[in-house]
C-alpha cells in the first residue's frame, strides 16, 4: 500500500483527529496552567479523574450534561489539589504532580471497584455520536475528516480560537503572561498572583477533565482502570512542542496523533518486525520534533516557582 496515499486519506485524517482531541484538550489546559507559572505533570491524573467521574455521572443519571459536568468537576478536583499544594503549600510542583498521578490512579480504580464490583459484564453508556456539519463536511479532503466528528472536536476548534484570543488579544492574556513571567511585577501592579494561578489551574482542570471525558463518553463508552494509559504525559509533550501557543499545541497533538494512527496502519500492512517497533514510533517522532525546538526555550521565567510575597 502506498504510504503517501494512506496518509492523505480521509480515514487517516479522521483517526489522527480522534487521537489528537483528548491530548489537545488536556494540552491546552496545561498550557494555561504553565503560562501562569504552575507546571503540573499530573495531567494524567486530571484526565483519569475526568474520565472516571464523567462516566460515573452519566451512568448514574443517564444525562449527558451531568456526565460532562461530573467530568469537568473531576478534573477540577484533581487539578485544585495540585494547585493547593503548589500555590498555598509552596510544594515542589513536579513531585506534587507525580503524587497526584499515584493518588488518582488508585482512587479511580478503587471507586470503580466500589461502585461496580468485580464483574465481567462491562458497565457502559452510549457514546456521544458524531454530528455532521451540513455544508462544511462536503469540503474536499478536510471536510469529511474535520466536520463529520463528535461535538468535542468542534469544541476543540472553538477553544483553540478562544484561547488564542484570550492569550494574545485580551488584558487577561497579558495578566496571565505577567504572572508566569514576573509574579512580583504582577503583584506590585495590583494583580493577585495566586488568584490568577488558581484560576489557571481551574481552567486546566476543566480542560483536562474534558480530555478524560472524551475518552470515556465519546471514544469508548465505558471506564476501566488506568484508562488514560499515559495520554497525560503526551499532553505535556504537546505543551512544550507547541511552545504554549494554542495553535502550536493542537499542531503538536496532531503530529503525535498522526504518528499513532500511522503506526497502527503500518502494522496492518503486515511485517515481521516486532510490534513494539511501531508502538515506539510516536515517542521517537516526539523526540525528533523536539530537536527542532533547539535554542528556542521559552519557559515562563517563574515556571514551577511558588510566589512568596515577602521572600527577599
Amino acid at each position, binding site marked *: 500500500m502506498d504510504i503517501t496515499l494512506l496518509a492523505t486519506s480521509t480515514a487517516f485524517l479522521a483517526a489522527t483527529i480522534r487521537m489528537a482531541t483528548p491530548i489537545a484538550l488536556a494540552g491546552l489546559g496545561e498550557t494555561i496552567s504553565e503560562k501562569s507559572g504552575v507546571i503540573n505533570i499530573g495531567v494524567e491524573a486530571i484526565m483519569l479523574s475526568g474520565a472516571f467521574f464523567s462516566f460515573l455521572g452519566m451512568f448514574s443519571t443517564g444525562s449527558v450534561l451531568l456526565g460532562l459536568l461530573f467530568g469537568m468537576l473531576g478534573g477540577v478536583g484533581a487539578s485544585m489539589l495540585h494547585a493547593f499544594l503548589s500555590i498555598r503549600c509552596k510544594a515542589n510542583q513536579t513531585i506534587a504532580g507525580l503524587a497526584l498521578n499515584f493518588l488518582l490512579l488508585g482512587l479511580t480504580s478503587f471507586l470503580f471497584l466500589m461502585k461496580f464490583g468485580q464483574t465481567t459484564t462491562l458497565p457502559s453508556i452510549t457514546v456521544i455520536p458524531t454530528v455532521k456539519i451540513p455544508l462544511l463536511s462536503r469540503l474536499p479532503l478536510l471536510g469529511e475528516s474535520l466536520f463529520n466528528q463528535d461535538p468535542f472536536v468542534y469544541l476543540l476548534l472553538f477553544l483553540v480560537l478562544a484561547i488564542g484570543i484570550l492569550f494574545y488579544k*485580551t*488584558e487577561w492574556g*497579558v*495578566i496571565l503572561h505577567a504572572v508566569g513571567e514576573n509574579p512580583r511585577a504582577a*503583584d*506590585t501592579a*495590583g494583580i493577585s498572583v495566586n488568584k490568577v494561578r488558581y484560576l489557571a489551574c481551574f481552567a486546566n482542570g476543566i480542560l483536562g477533565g474534558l480530555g478524560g471525558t472524551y475518552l470515556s463518553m465519546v471514544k469508548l463508552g465505558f471506564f476501566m482502570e488506568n484508562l488514560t494509559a499515559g495520554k497525560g504525559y503526551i499532553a505535556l509533550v504537546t505543551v512544550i512542542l507547541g511552545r504554549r501557543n494554542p495553535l502550536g499545541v493542537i499542531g503538536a497533538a496532531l503530529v503525535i496523533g498522526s504518528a499513532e494512527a500511522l503506526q497502527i496502519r503500518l502494522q496492518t500492512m503486515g511485517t515481521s518486525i516486532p510490534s513494539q517497533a511501531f508502538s515506539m514510533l510516536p515517542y521517537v517522532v516526539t523526540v525528533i520534533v523536539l530537536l527542532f525546538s533547539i535554542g528556542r526555550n521559552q519557559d515562563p521565567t517563574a515556571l514551577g516557582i511558588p510566589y512568596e510575597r515577602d521572600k527577599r
Partner: protein
Amino acid sequence: MALLSMRDIDKSFFGKMANEHVNLEVGYNEIHALLGENGAGKTTLMNILYGIYTRDSGTIEMEGKPITFSSPKDAIKSHIGMVHQHFTLVPTLTVSENITLGLKSPGHPFPNRKVLDEQIASLSCRYGLDVDPKAIVGQLSVGEQQRVEIIKLLYRDAKLLILDEPTAVLTPQETESFFTVLRRLREDGHSVIIITHHIPEVLSITDSITVLQNGRNAGTVQTKETNAEELSRLMIGRKLQGSKREMISKQNRGNGLVLSGVFLSKAKLGPLSLQVPPGSILGIAGVDGNGQKELAEIIVGIRMHQGGTVSLCGECLDHLSVEQRKRKGIGYISDDRHKDGLILDMDLQDNMLLKLFGEEGIVTHGFVNRLLLRKRTEQAVAEHAIKTSSLECPLRYLSGGNQQKLILAREMAGNPSLVVACQPTRGLDIGSSETVHNMLLRLRKEGCSILLVSSDLDEIVLLSDEIAVMHGGKIMDCLPNDRIDLTKIGLLMAGKGMDA
C-alpha cells in the same frame, strides 16, 4: 494635616526587628527622603506602606483616614505607587502592556492599544519621560525602564510616589533630568518618598528627610536646615573618613592588562584597545548598557571575542577558559551580585570556595579541605568585618553590603594580578561604599591592575588613575585623572562628539 503618617510601625523577620516604632510623616507637595544604612529598614517600611509586607503593629493614615493594605492592589486604590529597588517590569511585554497591566481600560478585556498608547505618549510628554509605548521592555536601558516604572505609577493616578533607590543606576545627566521630573511632579500636586544613598542628591532635591538607623528613627530634619555631615552622622553614627588615592611611583612592573583591537560584532562592541598597568585603576565611565558588561565578560572569559587580543602581564589570554584565567589571578566583581556573583542558598564558606578552589591546598586530589576553607573564610570575615550570624549562614540572609564585602574579600584573595570590578558599590550605603573603595585602593597599592566599571562618576573620579569613557561599545576618550573635565565626560557618555 499630613498626606501620610505612619506611626509606631513594628516589623520583625524571624525574630529580628527590621522596623521598631518607626514614624514617618509626608506632607502634600513634598519630596521626602528616607535615609539610612543598608539594612536600616527603609525598604521594609515602604513595603509595609505599599501592602507587600504586613506590619506587626502600628498605624498608617492617609489624609487623616486610617488605612490597612493587604496587598498592593489596595495601595494603588489609595493612590500610592512604588518603584522598587529591583524593577518590577515584565521584560517580555511591551512598555504599554506593562504600564496598563491589570487595569480595566474601556472595552475590557479587549484593550484598545492604540488609544492606550496615545494616553501613555501624552503622559510621557507632559512629564518629559521619553519612552516608546511599543518597545519591548527587556530591550530597554535601565534609565528607560525607570521611566516606564514612573509612567506606570502616574498612569495609575498615584498621588504619593515611593521610589526606592531610583538613581542608583542613572548617569549624572539622567539623574538631573529625573530630578526635573520629580520637581514637575511636585508642582503638579504629587508627593514623593525617595530612598537614596547619595547625600548630595538628597540635599538638592528634597524638602524634608527622615533617617533610620538599625530599624529605628534616628531623626527627621528639614533639608534647608541640615548639611551632609549631620546626615551622615545620623545615618552611621560617625563621620566618614573618606577614601584617598595615594600616588604610587610608577615602577615598571610589566604591562598589566592589555587589550588591542578587541571586538565582538554581535554585541556591537569595539574594536577597542586599552591598557591597565599594575598598581593602577582604569575607570570606565559610561551609561549602563554601552558595552561595559560585555567588555568585562570578555576579559574574564565568560564571553569570547571575535578578534583582537587580550593579554595579562604579557601573556595572551585569548584561548583560556574562565577557570584558567582565574588561576592566572583574575578576579571579577559583577554588577549583579545575586545572579552572577553569589549562590544565595549556599553559606559563606561555599561561596568563598567559588574562587578559592584555585588556591593551593584547598582542593587536594579532588577533595575539598574544609578545615582550611573554614580558616580562610574566618580570616576574610574578620579582616573585612563581614557581619554574619555564622559561617554557615546562607548568603541570602546577609545584607547587601555584607554580601558585596564577601565578594570583594573573595576576589581579592591570593594576590590577584587583575580585578575587573563592575558597579562595585551599586546599592551600598555610604559606609559600605567607603569600605569597598578602601579595599580596591588597597589592591591597587599591592600592585594589582584594576578595571573599574561604574556609572557613578564621583566614584570613578575618586578612584581612577585614568578614565575612559565608553559609548556604543567604543571608547570615546581616555584621560589621566588630573586632566579631566566633568562636563566633557558627561557629553562623551551621552555620545556627543569628541570635539565638543
